[in-house]
């Protein structure tokens, strides 16, 4: 299976701190994506990084990809209470193939 596995499973930080979540996967990929899920809600796409990219930024988000280690990290800088959610990485074999999700990291940002 190519599924991603995130760690940590849960992370609790103070508002203003940075949050780092990691993801590992098993097979070759076309791209890796990060999604956010508020409790009981649908998944919302955050950022995508292609297999030939090493780092990408979007606002307070920074994602890195190391294909040699089959791993990715998501950094949320200057976290806010509103960032409290679960964060999932998802791998894509070749675009439009089913995304395979990891187990997610539950992030709690305490005001």
């Amino acid at each position, binding site marked *: 299976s190519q*599924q991603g596995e995130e760690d940590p499973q849960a992370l609790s930080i103070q508002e203003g701190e940075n949050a780092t979540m990691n993801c590992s996967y098993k097979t070759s990929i*076309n*791209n890796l*994506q990060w*999604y956010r899920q508020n409790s*009981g*809600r*649908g*998944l*919302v*796409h955050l950022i*995508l990084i292609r297999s030939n990219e090493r780092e990408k930024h979007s606002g307070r988000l920074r994602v890195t990809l190391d294909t040699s280690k089959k791993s990715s990290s998501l950094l949320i800088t200057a976290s806010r209470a509103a960032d409290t959610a679960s964060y*999932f990485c*998802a791998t*894509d074999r070749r*675009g*439009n*193939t*089913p*995304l*395979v*999700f*990891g*187990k*997610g990291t539950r992030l709690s940002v305490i005001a």
Partner: protein
Amino acid sequence: EPEVTQTPSHQVTQMGQEVILRCVPISNHLYFYWYRQILGQKVEFLVSFYNNEISEKSEIFDDQFSVERPDGSNFTLKIRSTKLEDSAMYFCASRDRPEAFFGQGTRLTVV
């Protein structure tokens, strides 16, 4: 902004009953998916649908499950004879590029 809509938001059904979960994907998207998430656990792929046929399915998607795009806008998931273990959030997603758009989900409870 276009969105994927799912109905109903909650469904309670007796074990052994048939249920149909409905989704309206984003109109110009060509790829459609169903995922499920058992409470607090990972998001699991069920089935993908393209060009009016199933393009890929997981081991979970057995003979009890079927999908249909009856009228060019709706995309349905049918569970023929529900089991207790089918209780989960079911998410529909659509895409026309690598990023997927998810609906808010249907919470299915089998009693």
